[in-house]
């Protein structure tokens, strides 16, 4: 995706060139019609809901809004969401980097299988991902009896939520890094090794700096999904208020209880998170665009 990032970023110059030549210029009305269509679509489907979230959140005033967020259950939900993300993102950072490293720098049997497997969380419905864990760790599941004997709770508890989050967000970092590292090849690493660098030195001084923007981009997307995940988490959570509710689940509960203002207040936090993610993502894209611009003429 970082490749796409750089491409998107470069599209600006290209479209300007395209536009400035009479031979390739479309009639003005085509241009404005296209802009109008995409803008109104954007306004109706993306901007309107976003505005609605904040309008609804503040409908009953600032105090209700603050109260909805400071309510113990809401705070517990925020805490749980942050905990899940804080565990899932670093884990997937490590998994993603090692998987990408293994796939791009080594040749081994089952490599294609691994690549396909990485995509599994994307291709399978989140509900199914949740159910898998219930089947494995639930009371009637494979390890259920053993776990309950040892007094370990996975399903309807925090570990289950973390597991489901890790599963669902696994592909982001790896998917981001694999094409990037593939495009960069092994030569720089080989050069480092010939110059006497050890494995971790090569990784730290050569590999990592080369993929840092792609990595950051993957982490941001991974984090956004980790905090926003609903389906898989919903299955394993059990919806115990103040205990196993994440923010998205908390929003649903409030909404089902007709506490619209409170529901939208918590939802606005998630929306805010999305906006912050977009801003950081945009910044990372620009940085990545800059650094890839410098290297394109290799």
């Amino acid at each position, binding site marked *: 995706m970082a490749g796409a990032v750089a491409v998107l970023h470069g599209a600006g110059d290209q479209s300007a060139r395209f536009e400035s030549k009479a031979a390739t210029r479309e009639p003005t009305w085509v241009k404005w019609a296209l802009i109008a269509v995409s803008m109104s679509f954007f306004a109706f489907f993306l901007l309107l809901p976003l505005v609605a979230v904040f309008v609804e959140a503040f409908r009953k005033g600032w105090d209700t809004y603050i109260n909805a967020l400071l309510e113990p259950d809401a705070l517990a939900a925020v805490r749980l969401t942050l905990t899940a993300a804080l565990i899932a993102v670093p884990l997937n950072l490590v998994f993603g980097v090692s998987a990408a490293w293994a796939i791009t720098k080594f040749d081994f049997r089952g490599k294609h299988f691994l690549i396909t497997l990485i995509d599994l969380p994307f291709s399978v419905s989140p509900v199914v991902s949740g159910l898998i864990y219930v089947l494995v760790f639930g009371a009637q599941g494979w390890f259920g009896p053993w776990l309950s004997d040892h007094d370990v709770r996975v399903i309807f508890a925090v570990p289950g939520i973390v597991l489901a989050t890790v599963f669902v967000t696994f592909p982001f970092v790896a998917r981001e890094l694999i094409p990037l590292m593939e495009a960069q090849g092994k030569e720089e690493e080989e050069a480092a*090794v*010939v*110059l006497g660098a050890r494995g971790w030195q090569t990784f730290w001084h050569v590999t990592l700096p*080369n993929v840092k923007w792609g990595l950051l981009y993957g982490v941001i997307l991974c984090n956004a999904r980790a905090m926003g995940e609903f389906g898989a988490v919903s299955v394993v959570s059990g919806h115990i208020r103040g205990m196993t509710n994440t923010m998205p689940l908390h929003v649903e509960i409030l909404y089902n209880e007709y506490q619209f203002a409170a529901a939208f207040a918590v939802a606005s936090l998630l929306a805010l998170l999305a906006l912050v993610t977009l801003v950081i993502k945009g910044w990372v894209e620009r940085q990545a665009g800059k*650094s890839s611009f*410098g290297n394109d003429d*290799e």
Partner: protein
Amino acid sequence: MSIQVNNIRKQFGSFTALQDVSLDFPTGELVALLGPSGCGKTTLLRIIAGLESADSGQVLLEGQDASDTHVRERQVGFVFQHYALFRHMTVFDNVAFGMRMKPRATRPSEKAIKAKVLELLKLVQLDWVADRFPSQLSGGQRQRIALARALAVEPRVLLLDEPFGALDAKVRKELRRWLRRLHDELHITSIFVTHDQEEALEVADRVVLMDHGKVEQVGTPEEVYRHPASPFVYSFLGSVNLFHGRVEGEAVHVGEDRLAPGKVDLAHGSEVFAFARPHEIDIVVDGSEAGGVAAKISRILAFGVTARVELDGLNGSTGEVFEVEITRAEVARLGLEEGQAVRLVPSRLRVFERNAAASGASQAPNWVI
């Protein structure tokens, strides 16, 4: 440092990259591994460096078996075709990298590193780009930085993989001369891989010709050019005219035409390849000449110092194309024109038996350079 490779074999799937290669590289020489793409030359270089491992055989560095020595302990400098500079580091940091990666005990001080880097950058005449990034340099400059970086760890041997392959013709020629001068200054044992015969002949002390994973010939540029050991070497080094013929008595017959190579010690009736360089053929217009091969002039290119005459074979060599180089004065004297039928009489002819060439030398001699 001397390098010796013994009976190296390497297989990639069903493709044999190297079959039983044995070579001796003496200390202090600049040797070219020359051959067409896919001949195994780069693989051999990477095996010597330790970036690739041989299926069987040994690499001896200074007489010691290096098969189990890790790349980073082999003390080789490696220069990649596409430079492989660290793109996120400045030129200075690139060159300093090898020294900075050393274990603390043997690592020079930052001050010593700085002095060494600047010395190396001066050596490659690029001390003014220390603060730039690789992307801000031209291809030729990048390759010189790559060389400086390789030299920074004081390698015992320098290996260059098609070092000028990605550069344009003019820069290439400059760098070629520059590399030769640099080698004359440093006298570090160097091996460079190239598919460009001109490059190999011009730069190297010795040339190793390779084809299909085997060494075809080893010698000084003069030797391999003047006395090619096989049809492959003959046709790979410079342009060449090829005659398919058969030995009959003292002569080589091409269809009903007859070439007299002087002396052929091959059995009567053996099928042969006969080679002659374009400047080793005379064009005879006199109709009474019976020797040589009949051909028809198809084009005369007379724009250089010498004129190049292209001919289509007639009679026994129909379908063959020949090329002859003669002076422009000669063209005028003979009154050559396009479409004219003439005879080609080689003044020097190299004859190889066809079967021997086809089956290849089955034994793998230990080539001493």
